[in-house]
């Protein structure tokens, strides 16, 4: 009993897709997303189009989102003319395009050295099935099912593969029934809080004031997280449809998608998606004759982390400084223009179409953990693979690290990880058996955030990491609370002093004092700004004592605890070391070169170019293992 207008749209999209799939041409779909562009994706695409044209090949060259192999972009699929076999390739640089086109497109062969695997069809000893690739094994791709398969700038592709079926079902349901379906699914907020999305929609549904607003939080400010970006750049209609379903459930009239400034491509793709949905009559007034009115605005941020906090975000849309508001009132009571407003993360909304299309039961039973459904994660830091995955909640961090991040770089030991953004804390590498679920972190005063997990090895110094994260919190403090802007500033001052060799035993108490003080801040930013230090003091206790009492930085990072010295006066590279030094810190005395400690900024350039001539020592004059301070 689907809406007839929607059915017509779906039928037509399916017809077009079927015709496209059987057009007898090879189909190439190359990933053009931010990661691919950073790795020369545009040059590859241009070269590909030119090479295909030059050879007069009748090949369709289209663009798509990311399969998640972000560290191996540009990736691309080649689908055979008969449509029976599709292979995923990686790392195709512009220089190799001619060879690729000759061997794969013109001759119809494989190029095993670039192949990741066979997506569909028969494998060979050289090109195994993609599903057997260690990175793909165990992934459950639901949100990412279309990504890399469809053109994210073509709404018909989305619709042909089941898009808007969930919305079609929701159109036939009343608001309570939609809410119930989403509540039953157990969908929890994907920004990390885990609050049931259905219940939040119900707050809005039962609010009395008009109009009601929906906001999609696409600020994704946690450095090291790009799951929302992969969704927006790869399958933006999923978010549009999700918000439409939420609009029906919450009886909202208007929605905003707030995208961070750093994501211009995601902004462009979301805008195109919204424009195309309008053109199809899926947004606007009296949508498909159903009586539903829903307008969607794609909104661009301008560089501010606290604008990811929902009330900071609301102030930002309102046109003010993006300072988080004092709660209560909560957005459900007084949000945008003081009207009831629901804020959810990109990934939260994106699950709604899947829940409605396939039912709460199907959606939730994939996971036996308390947290239902699948979750996207990105892994970065000192790991081999910096990619994006979609998995069911529950594997241990060790499993995720080994399987999806390809293990630690150079086989080093994992010293620790950060589970989800600068407010989430740090965990010692001894605890890699923690599962990727919410509770274990909560219980330890940590926080599994929006999906960005950062791993570090022994070359990282815990004082340095704390300085970085606290510096981030200080820079991004909105300035409202003295506890927050003053407290983070104080914490950074103390950390800097420690790293310069001036640590005092009382500093540990000073930190505890700050921990106690900052919880009195208004918003989570201030309240959790000290989490990194608080958790690091426990998890890496010995390293703090080393810094403060022994004045030693085991990683050879803290500037006041190390010194650069000329080890060999005769090494040929010494001249290069002198030349690269940005502060002219090399001075000659009696025919001998030495590094002037006051001028040296510990950038390490000299040791990079002259590893045998320059050494790093600590205060105890014991040489630090080469490579440690290089951090690479």
């Amino acid at each position, binding site marked *: 009993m689907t809406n007839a207008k929607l059915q017509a749209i779906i039928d037509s999209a399916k017809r077009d897709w079927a015709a496209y799939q059987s057009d007898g041409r090879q189909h190439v779909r190359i990933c053009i997303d*931010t990661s691919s562009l950073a790795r020369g994706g545009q040059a590859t695409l241009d070269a590909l189009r030119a090479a295909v044209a030059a050879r007069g090949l009748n090949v369709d060259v289209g663009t798509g989102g990311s399969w998640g192999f972000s560290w191996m972009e540009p990736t691309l699929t080649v689908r055979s003319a008969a449509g029976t076999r599709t292979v995923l390739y990686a790392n195709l640089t512009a220089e190799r395009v001619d060879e690729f086109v000759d061997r794969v497109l013109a001759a119809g062969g494989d190029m095993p050295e670039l192949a990741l695997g066979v997506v569909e069809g028969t494998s060979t000893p050289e090109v195994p099935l993609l599903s057997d690739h260690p990175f793909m094994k165990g992934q459950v791709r639901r949100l990412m099912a279309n990504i890399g398969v469809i053109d994210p700038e073509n709404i018909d592709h989305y619709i042909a593969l089941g898009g808007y079926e969930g919305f079609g079902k929701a159109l036939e349901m009343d608001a309570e029934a939609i809410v119930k379906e989403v509540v039953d699914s157990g969908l929890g907020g994907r920004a990390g809080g885990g609050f049931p999305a259905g219940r939040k929609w119900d707050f809005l549904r039962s609010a009395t004031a008009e109009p009601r607003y929906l906001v999609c939080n696409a600020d994704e400010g946690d450095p090291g997280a790009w799951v929302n970006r992969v969704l927006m750049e790869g399958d933006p209609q999923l978010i549009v449809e999700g918000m439409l379903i939420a609009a029906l459930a919450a009886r909202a009239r208007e929605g905003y998608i707030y995208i961070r400034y750093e994501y211009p491509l995601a902004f462009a793709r979301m805008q195109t998606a919204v424009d195309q949905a309008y053109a199809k009559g899926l947004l606007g007034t009296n949508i498909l004759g159903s009586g539903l009115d829903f307008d969607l605005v794609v909104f661009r941020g301008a560089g*501010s982390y606290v604008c990811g906090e929902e009330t900071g975000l609301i102030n930002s849309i309102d046109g003010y*400084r993006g300072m988080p508001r004092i709660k209560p009132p909560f957005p459900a009571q007084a949000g945008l223009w003081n009207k009831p407003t629901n804020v959810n993360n990109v990934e939260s909304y994106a699950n709604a179409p899947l829940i409605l299309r396939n039912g709460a039961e199907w959606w939730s039973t994939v996971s036996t953990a308390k947290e239902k459904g699948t979750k996207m994660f990105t892994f970065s830091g000192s790991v081999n693979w*910096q990619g994006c995955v979609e998995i069911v909640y529950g594997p241990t961090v060790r499993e995720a690290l080994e399987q999806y991040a390809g293990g630690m770089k150079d086989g080093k030991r994992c010293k620790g990880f950060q589970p989800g953004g600068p407010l989430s804390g740090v965990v010692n590498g001894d605890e890699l058996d923690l599962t990727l679920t919410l509770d274990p972190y909560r219980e330890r005063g940590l926080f599994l955030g929006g999906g960005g997990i950062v791993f*570090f090895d022994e070359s990282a110094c815990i004082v340095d990491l704390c300085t970085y994260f606290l510096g981030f919190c200080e820079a991004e403090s909105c300035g409202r609370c003295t506890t927050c802007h003053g407290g983070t500033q104080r914490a950074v001052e103390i950390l800097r002093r420690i790293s310069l060799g001036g640590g005092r035993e009382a500093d540990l108490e000073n930190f505890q004092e700050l921990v106690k003080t900052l919880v009195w801040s208004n918003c989570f930013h201030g309240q959790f700004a000290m989490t990194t230090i608080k958790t690091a003091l426990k998890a890496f206790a010995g390293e703090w004592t080393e810094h403060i009492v022994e004045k030693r930085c085991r990683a050879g990072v803290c500037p006041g605890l190390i010194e650069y010295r000329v080890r060999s006066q005769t090494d040929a590279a010494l001249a290069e070391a002198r030349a690269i030094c940005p*502060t002219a810190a090399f001075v000659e005395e009696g025919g001998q070169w030495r590094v002037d400690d006051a001028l040296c900024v510990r950038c390490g350039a000299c040791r990079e170019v002259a590893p045998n001539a320059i050494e790093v020592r600590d205060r105890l004059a014991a040489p630090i293992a080469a490579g440690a301070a290089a*951090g690479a």
Partner: protein
Amino acid sequence: MQPEPTLEELRGLVADFQPGRGHVMPALHRVQDRYGYISRAAIEVVARQLNTTPALVYGTVSFYDDFRTHPRPETEIAWCSGPACRLRGGDRIREAIQQTLELPLGGESEDHRYGLHVGQCNGTCSEAPQVWVNGEVVGNLSVSAAIRLAREVKGE
């Protein structure tokens, strides 16, 4: 570099924005997309168009790291401040670039030829450590490569 916009141009540019509808940020973006920065005159024009005050609009502009009140320098190095970059020597790269350019973070040379901006991680962490030079990624940097890059930008 774009010439200083006239009031006439500015008014025309933001004429379709309306008060009370979340148009402050979009109006500022449009000005900056067009001219590269948001001048004092632009702040006044936007305030008038949106029926608010220059003080409030300036408050908004100054809150965000990526709104600029001055033209971009000819060459801008944006340094990635993110964690993956830091774990691969990003902070030593910052120190080296600052020393070479003789600029603080966020600073620019007196002749506006070059400047140093703080960039945020955009999830291209596989290229760490990286900077963006006028928006183009320069990844997998070493400290020495960063120094050479900065010297080139500086014209040394």
